[in-house]
């Protein structure tokens, strides 16, 4: 099972992802913006990060840039999440492993975890 960091200012999404992924046996940490996310990273380096694109204080691309400049975080796969089309995200951000368009269903999240971490299909 993996350690997962969910960074999203939408507490509803963060809470449901935390609860559902915990039920699935993962260890889940949540953060409400990029700065908060970096502080969590300082304590524990997760296996995968679900990172929202638009957030207050520090947005997703800014947190991603910080991570890319820190060797310890460079290998952590990031799934960028947004309700905007991926083309818009790709124009202003790079280095993320996967993209998840909002709204999404839990199955998409578990499938991505399995795919990115190479742990096989999860139910």
């Amino acid at each position, binding site marked *: 099972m993996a350690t997962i960091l969910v960074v999203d200012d*939408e*507490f*509803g*999404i963060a*809470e*449901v*992802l935390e*609860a*559902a992924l915990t*039920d699935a046996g993962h260890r889940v940490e949540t953060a409400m913006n990029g700065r908060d996310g970096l502080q969590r990273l300082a304590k524990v380096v997760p296996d995968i990060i679900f990172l929202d694109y638009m957030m207050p204080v520090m947005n997703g691309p800014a947190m991603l840039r910080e991570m890319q400049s820190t060797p310890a975080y460079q290998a952590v796969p990031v*799934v960028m999440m947004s*309700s905007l*089309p*991926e083309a818009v995200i790709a124009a202003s951000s790079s280095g*993320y*492993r*996967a*993209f*998840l*368009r*909002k*709204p*999404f*269903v*839990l*199955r*998409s*999240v578990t*499938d*991505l975890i399995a*795919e*990115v971490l190479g742990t096989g299909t999860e139910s």
Partner: protein
Amino acid sequence: MTRAPDTASEPARLLPSGIAGLDTILKGGFLRGGIHLIQGDPGSGKTILGDQICFNHAAAGGTALFVTLLAESHERMLAHHQGLAFFDETLIPASVTYVSAYAVLEKEGLPGLLQLLRREVQARGASVLVLDGLITAEESAGSRREFKRFVHGLQAQAALTDCTMFLLSSTAPRPTPSEHTMVDGIVELASQLFGRSAERTLEVLKRRGLGFLRGRHSFRITDAGIVVFPRIEALLGKPTREDRIPEDKLPSGIPRLDDMLGGGLPENSTTMLVGPSGCGKTIAGLQFLGGCSADQPGLFFGLFETPARLHAKAKHLKLPIEQSIGAGHVEIIWQPMTEGVLDEIGNRMLDAVQRRKVRRLFLDGLNGLEELAVEPARLNRFIAALSNEFRGMGVATMFTHEADLLGPADLPMGGLALREVSGITENIVVMRFVELRTRLYRMVSVIKVRDSDFQHRMRCYRIGEGGITIDGDPERAEAILVEALGGRGLER
């Protein structure tokens, strides 16, 4: 790079309620993966609606979860719903499951309830969730903020689990609580009193990002469950088909009336027969439908006489419609005037016309609808909407309208208020009585045929074997009227 399915780029996905009229109002159904509030006073039909949505969803292959919070016990609810047509015991518990969440709410509060709902939805793969008794959750919240947080959490769950959620709640006080702004849709069920009769109504108050038919729509709770009748004026606000300008004339079934009309009734037009009781309007309608065939199916939609009485009348007068009914070319639908819902009648008529591709429709009559309409002010718009639709469908429609045209012919059109109805009908035929000494004479006149020449003189007519027979010329009517007016003639 890995890419998850791009769900947002899919067209708006809708979840049909399985209740035809409601899905028409919602233009297909509820937003799938959304959260919808169904509110109404006790007894308004919320629980039946929620249960019906569950069973309809299950019957279509989905899985539904019905969660109660100190509302009816499951046993009692199932006992009440067992007699309803949508209820299918074989779908329980595999496709429809009932769960009580009150104990969890009591013990663990709203966070516990939220957790329970998510786990149950995920474990059962439920694509529909009904939460009955939202008020109990609201009351258990420590603050409005906590309750809003609960609704927000539900909203996220609905989207993330692709489960369409229905929250059943009492009618909200005004002003509308702010948490109601968080849901994707609000449907309100109500009951309105009109004098001593009551009519159930359904209104969509909110539907995020999607269109719907506005206003209050009537519904009934029947043995089939909830049956919704979209408001005719909203449903047919614009005709679904373009108006086709009539090129040919259609025989009215009364040969000399066709001469007076300038060759017959314009195709797919609307004709109003106006006259007092006993003047023969219904007989005229039976003659009109006597011209029906396999290619020209007809419909007699009556509010006064029962089918048995119509058969007897047609048989007594030896009208050709007897053969048309026998051959299945004409259908008779009788709507008793005791108690009815205007939109139910309109939808019934529309369904019957569509079902048999009706080309000739006789509605007997407008006064019956007036009696039934709890809001008579709607009637003109109601008839106009139906007329426009029928016109586009290529239907020749004939309505009857009772008017007190009886007595001395001092003012032959005296007392006839056509202003209200003339706008919705292209052709108007007036049938009346004229008193002279001890006799009553029947006379007919055509006062309007839109965009066509017609004869402007009144003629006498008789009712006997074969139905209505109109005089070959207006001379007898002229002589009677001159004498009735004391030799003054009509031109004063």
